[in-house]
């Protein structure tokens, strides 16, 4: 059991070391990189099976006595997130391989390190170790943003690194203050610490604020829409599925341990969640490129993910987890579609695109289903998540929060329609008929393509690689429909995990026993 608990952190690090040795063998590197992430999916599924029914497992690394050893804990929430994040990462790697984004010899090792940091933060039970896993994840992501090394990347990278380093420094000082007040950094021992230890509130608030920066909650969100559209498209998809979700997960965990029974924390997060939803969706209106719009929607959706903490009932946690799990796949797949569009046409500007429904119908369907899910239209999984969430809000008499959640869904639908109209409907532009992007990625180009402008348009290229560009999005589309129709099993799977969040007693017991 303890091997399985440490695996989400240790396995990707080992794979990263191996991949670094293979940096002169790109094909082998690609195979091993993908195989490593598939192994992580297996680890995730193993953890989900082991924690089904609300069981919690904990282990102390190295056998040190309590308080000194690093604790790894897996409950339902961490297990589901480990599984979900690794599945989405496999899809992102498929797209990255299809568009040759992984050509850089450091790409696969960095992705492995990134996964070590993210999955490590899901299973760690210790606040300082959380800081370390966050740093592991961020350092890998700094380099991934700057990997292409052009002027835009360097500029975005500077913003990203500066904001996140400032947050990390705050996190570290917060942990120091918390240790000074409470004498421990173990999350389980810090249960209700804010209520019981008078001076712990300052450190805990600093920690929560630093995590809110990484989750990009308004008003600490402005770095995200400036950075994400600049990184490589498949890299953005990977970040969207992993980075902010780690922040949201830690907020959930802090809520159930450090801030347990603190009403002020809940109320602040409720307000922040509602404001985040609105600001994010309004920000998207002003953008005219696919990934820019999607990046602002990420900010908006973080509001939905944090709203359950503000509501604070078992029903809300269940809704939040259902929404979070399907959202991981949905957002990842939307960014992957954006990556495919940019690979094929060479641009992500809506003004230069149009009519792709006729040239690339598979891609259009792969965009449509997750986009409807993001807006919460039945019969997709997003509808189930949002319905449960709004229902939970109304049950707790939070009419305004529930109402805003519904209104923001409509606004989300509007900007999804904006992308749909801009990219898939309307007149075909020369970028869409000639597909000049493909030439840049050394795809075979049809006679008369890539340069010749006049109709009749040349037949579009279809081969294994263009198929691989559309496949992940289509797969998620099917998944979104399946989860929408068969939501019952998912809710049953998530229910015990939500119980553990609302009442962390099994979590505390497991850590004390270990």
């Amino acid at each position, binding site marked *: 059991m303890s091997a399985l608990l440490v695996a989400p952190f240790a396995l990707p690090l080992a794979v990263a070391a191996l991949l670094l040795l293979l940096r002169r063998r790109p094909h082998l590197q690609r195979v091993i990189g993908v195989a490593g992430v598939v192994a992580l999916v297996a680890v995730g599924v193993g953890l989900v099976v082991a924690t089904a029914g609300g069981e919690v497992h904990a282990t102390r690394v190295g056998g040190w006595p309590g*308080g*000194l050893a690093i604790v790894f804990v897996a409950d339902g929430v961490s297990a589901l997130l480990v599984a979900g994040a690794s599945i989405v990462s496999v899809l992102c790697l498929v797209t990255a391989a299809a568009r040759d*984004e992984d050509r850089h010899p450091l790409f696969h090792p960095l992705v492995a390190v990134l996964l070590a940091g993210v999955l490590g933060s899901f299973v760690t039970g210790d606040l*300082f170790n959380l*800081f*370390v896993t966050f*740093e592991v994840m961020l*350092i890998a992501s*700094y*380099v991934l943003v*700057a990997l*292409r*090394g*052009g*002027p*835009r990347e*360097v*500029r*975005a*990278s*500077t*913003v990203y*690194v*500066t904001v996140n*380093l*400032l947050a990390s*420094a705050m996190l*570290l*000082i917060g*942990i*120091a*203050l918390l*240790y*000074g007040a409470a004498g421990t*950094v173990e999350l389980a021992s810090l249960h209700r610490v804010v209520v019981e230890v008078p001076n712990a509130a300052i450190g805990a608030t600093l920690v929560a604020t630093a995590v809110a920066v990484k989750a990009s909650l308004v008003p600490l969100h402005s770095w995200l829409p*400036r950075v994400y559209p*600049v990184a*490589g*498209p498949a890299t953005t998809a990977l970040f969207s599925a992993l980075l902010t979700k780690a922040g949201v997960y830690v907020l959930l965990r802090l809520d159930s341990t450090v801030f347990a029974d603190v009403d002020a924390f809940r109320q602040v997060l409720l307000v922040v969640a509602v404001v985040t939803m609105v600001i994010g969706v309004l920000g998207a209106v002003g953008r*005219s*490129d696919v990934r*820019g719009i999607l990046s602002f929607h990420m900010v908006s959706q973080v509001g939905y993910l944090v709203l359950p903490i503000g509501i604070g009932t078992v029903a809300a946690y269940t809704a939040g987890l259902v929404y979070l799990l399907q959202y991981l796949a949905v957002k990842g797949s939307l960014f992957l579609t954006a990556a495919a569009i*940019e*690979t094929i046409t*060479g*641009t*992500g*500007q*809506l*003004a*230069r695109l149009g009519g792709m429904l006729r040239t690339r119908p598979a891609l259009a369907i792969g965009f449509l289903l997750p986009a409807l899910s993001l807006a919460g239209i039945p019969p997709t999984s997003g509808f189930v998540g949002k319905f449960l969430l709004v229902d939970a809000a109304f049950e707790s008499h939070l009419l305004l929060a529930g109402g805003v959640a519904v209104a923001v869904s409509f606004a989300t639908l509007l900007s999804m329609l904006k992308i749909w109209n801009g990219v898939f409907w309307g007149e075909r532009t*020369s*970028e869409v008929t000639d597909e*000049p*992007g493909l030439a*840049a*990625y050394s795809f075979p180009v049809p006679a008369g393509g890539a*340069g010749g*402008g006049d109709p009749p348009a040349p037949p579009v290229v279809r081969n294994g690689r263009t198929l691989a560009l559309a496949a992940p999005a289509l797969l998620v589309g099917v998944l979104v429909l399946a989860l929408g129709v068969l939501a019952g099993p998912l809710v049953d799977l998530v229910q015990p995990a939500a119980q553990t969040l609302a009442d962390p007693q099994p979590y505390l017991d497991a850590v004390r026993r270990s």
Partner: protein
Amino acid sequence: MTAALIVGILAAAGTYLVLQRGIVRITLGFVLLGHAATTALLAAGGVARRDLAFVGAPGTPGDPLPQAFALTAIVISFGVTAFLLALAYRSRDTLGHDDVEAPDLEGSLLDQSASALELRIPTADEDAEPVDDAPGNREDGR
């Protein structure tokens, strides 16, 4: 008290430097902030308890945990400093300066919306020109 003052001064100086425009100053700011955090960690274990931990020597043994934290934090901030310096070097290489707020930079929000506006009015010579600001092409030119 001394520890609190040191943390305060380091954090203030670090924050001031981080708010500057050049990457090198920002880097130095983070070095100072890292020192502030390290000092805070050490102070969390009690500054007065400074004898050897674990050995059981006379006096008050120090708390080993904050020392381990501080050591880890120092290693991490060292790595990040190295990355920031590499970024500063790269910035000088590609942009010719290390000013992060310089308005002439390609890729600012203002810049992007301007190029999007231009593109709505297709010109005659635009068809002949390949899309040179497409990310794919730029990647190719790396």
